[in-house]
């Protein structure tokens, strides 16, 4: 492979979604030679599907709003394993990041006084939980992600960021000292494989919701960054924490924003009862997503589900009136008509909890520097590797993310990573070049697929993996099911290692990309399975029948999954915000 072309950049950002584009913008503005490598044209990234908004205390709906209240909600929402220093950074820097987006042109909806429109979202409160429901989610109708992603792409165009669109990152390249010095990438259009050299490699590859068969996630959400990091031997954190969004459209899995309930919609069971009043008497339908999702499943299991099979509930919106629906939720009206043949102005939408968000990811500090643990369990920075957005676990979401916090996470930590990398590059970094053997080992997996001559087909293996995750690692989990799931995944690992790539052509070969994605799905699925099995408690989105209670004695910790020995370790949660007192763990009720 000595003929392989190489490209050199100051920073290579893998992923063209919100966090990648925000990091790239910061670096491009600083004049660093920055490239964004994305397997799809950037505006096709999954950020585009975010609907409800970006939660941030900009004090528009309520002039007295305070980022500390937002921080309190986020810590509580995380079921106390969100790092408080990181949450403090996100909530306090948030307004700056949101105003920047507005200055870049993001078409936020507005209040009569001309300020950004904010709507209520789940888990939001005023005055540290004592002042009732807050309205803190800044919105551009119900297309906030679309508006945000396009705005960021547009501003990257303005600042001459280099785009490698429809390129696929295959694996990280590590040098002899274990520093990350670039990656191997495949140009999808031509099939050319290139060695990309960079002093800073940013994984902004988003989530991996496609490990489940029912997900709100785009087909491209295959955890490519997580897969690459795990294969490189780097650990992932809290990867058992998967958010199930209460309102995925029944059957299709398409997301219906929490903003529907923020605007006054609510869930009903087959008797027409607003059942969340029983589970969360105060916040009702705007309790944390984990709480609402579990309540829905309880209703279904207890025989109060809707439909012939009693396997879903209904989201009622018709009482809001056509005007509110068309002004505030136009995209939802469109999606409901397309995917459930229902006009929400007249009938309720059938919904079911659907896999939505990966709270876990690559552990990083607030600067986006990826972390690993040394033999004594101390944090060690991985030179040259950064992560931000859903692929990272800073951790601001802990065991359960609040609605609207993911878009804030993207821009705040994308920006932070960009700022840090710029100053690090200015100070000068120098890593050993990759040797040919380093490049060869990063090429191993692609070569394996290219040389495969027989074996099982990819789509069937993928479906089996997704079915396994859905059955054994859904909203409620229990030991025996999970053990069975772990076994099935081990079996799948062997079969995938011998699977067959039938199409070996070069021009826009999507079969090859799907093969490479399958490897990543498997890595994420197995890490999830083993972590979920080992975390013997219920916290946030991780809910076990056999360990129904939160165990703060043993598990007020991050889990750290080490891929080399497939063992789960623990990492301390940060309880030291810089400017205010620690939020002590309390019983979490809504």
């Amino acid at each position, binding site marked *: 492979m000595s003929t392989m072309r190489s490209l050199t950049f100051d920073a290579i950002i893998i992923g063209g979604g919100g966090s990648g584009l925000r990091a790239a913008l910061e670096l491009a503005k600083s004049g660093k030679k920055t490239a964004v490598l994305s397997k799809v044209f950037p505006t096709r990234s999954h950020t585009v599907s975010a609907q409800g908004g970006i939660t941030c205390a900009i004090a528009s709906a309520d002039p007295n709003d305070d980022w500390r209240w937002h921080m309190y909600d986020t810590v509580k929402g995380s079921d106390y394993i969100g790092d408080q220093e990181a949450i403090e950074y996100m909530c306090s820097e948030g307004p700056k990041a949101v105003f920047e987006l507005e*200055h870049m042109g993001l078409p936020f909806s507005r209040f009569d006084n001309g300020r950004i429109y904010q709507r209520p979202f789940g888990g939001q409160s005023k005055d540290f939980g004592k002042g009732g429901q807050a309205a803190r989610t800044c919105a551009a109708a119900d297309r906030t992600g679309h508006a945000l992603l396009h705005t960021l792409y547009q*501003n990257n*165009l303005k600042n001459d960021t280099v785009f490698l669109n429809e390129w696929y990152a295959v694996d990280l390249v590590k040098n002899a000292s274990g520093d990350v010095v670039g990656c191997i990438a495949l140009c999808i259009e031509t099939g050319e494989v290139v060695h990309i050299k960079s002093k800073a490699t940013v994984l902004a590859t988003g989530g991996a919701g496609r490990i489940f068969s029912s997900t709100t996630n*785009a*087909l491209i959400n295959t955890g490519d960054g997580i897969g690459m990091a795990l294969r490189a031997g780097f650990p992932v954190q809290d990867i058992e924490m998967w958010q199930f969004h209460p309102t995925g459209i029944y059957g299709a899995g398409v997301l219906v924003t929490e903003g529907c309930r923020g605007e006054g919609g609510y869930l009903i069971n087959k008797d027409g009862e607003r059942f969340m009043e029983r589970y969360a008497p105060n916040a009702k339908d705007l309790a944390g997503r984990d709480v609402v999702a579990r309540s829905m499943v309880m209703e279904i299991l207890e025989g109060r589900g809707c439909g012939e099979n009693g396997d879903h509930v209904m989201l009622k919106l018709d009482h809001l009136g056509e005007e509110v629906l068309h002004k505030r939720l136009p995209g939802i009206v469109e999606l409901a008509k397309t995917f459930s043949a229902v006009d929400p102005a007249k009938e309720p939408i059938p919904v079911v909890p659907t896999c939505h968000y990966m709270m876990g990811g690559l552990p990083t500090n607030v600067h986006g520097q990826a972390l690993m643990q040394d033999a004594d369990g101390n944090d060690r920075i991985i030179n040259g590797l950064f992560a931000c957005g859903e692929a990272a676990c800073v951790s601001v979401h802990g065991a359960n993310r609040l609605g609207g916090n993911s878009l804030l996470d993207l821009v705040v930590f994308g920006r932070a990573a960009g700022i840090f990398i710029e100053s690090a590059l200015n100070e000068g970094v120098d890593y050993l070049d990759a040797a040919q053997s380093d490049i060869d080992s990063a090429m191993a997996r692609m070569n394996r697929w290219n040389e495969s001559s027989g074996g099982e087909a990819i789509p069937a293996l993928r479906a089996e993996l997704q079915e396994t995750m859905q059955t054994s690692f859904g909203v409620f989990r229990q030991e025996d099911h999970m053990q069975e799931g772990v076994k099935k995944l081990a079996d799948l690992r062997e079969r995938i290692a011998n699977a067959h790539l039938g*199409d070996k052509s070069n021009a826009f070969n999507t079969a090859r990309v799907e093969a490479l994605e399958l490897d990543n799905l498997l890595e994420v699925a197995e890490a999830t399975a083993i972590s979920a099995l080992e975390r013997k408690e219920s916290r946030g989105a991780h809910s076990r029948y056999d360990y129904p209670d939160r165990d703060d004695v043993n598990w007020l910790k991050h889990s750290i999954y080490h891929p080399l020995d497939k063992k789960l370790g623990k990492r301390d949660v940060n309880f030291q915000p810089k400017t205010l007192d620690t939020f002590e763990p309390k019983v979490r009720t809504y």
Partner: protein
Amino acid sequence: MSMLQVSVYRYNPETDSAPYMQEFQVDTQGRDLMVLNVLEIIKQQDSSMAYRRSCREGVCGSDGMNMNGTNGLACVTAISDVTKNGKLVLRPLPGLPVVRDLVVDMGIFYKQYERIQPYLQNDTTAPAIERLQSPEERDKLDGLYECILCACCSTACPSFWWNPDKFVGPAGLLQAYRFLADSRDTATRERLSELEDPFSVFRCRGIMNCVAVCPKGLNPTRAIGKIRELLLANAT
């Protein structure tokens, strides 16, 4: 078994000297699938089938294609809406070079988008908070900012087919007007001066193919009319 007959445009530059139509039988099990689901089933039969897709819910704009003669998004088009005489014919978006099968080279489409400087320009100092904008001013952006760059409109436009290098096309012009209409943008004059030549805007003959195919229900022809009005107001 309820079989749907599907005819798909195939072309692999490495092996085919010319494109051809390939026939598939797809078992829909009586369901009214989306066209994208049909393609997924075909890809299980033939892994070499190439098409783009991402969100599968009509917001990312990846899977624009020509279905029984009409451009649209495969993921939000039900087969019952497009199938004629029990047959579904899938072709790439017309007027752009084909890379492979249903995948077209969108380079020139993106280039026209970039040409209109698709980003807010404001030469005043930004305030410490957001720039204020009344709900009425913000309402002017509705029907404009929602564009997903799927290229269904521009590739349904004969003017864009003939002059893709010179005519901005409906998608780009919709975005041009999105920034002209934004109360926060101060580059109106500069933007207009880039558009007054005989091609960029004025190649639009108002046939409204763009409006007919837009999967988001947007109206580029109206936006183009508004740009003409602004140009006229600016020049007379």
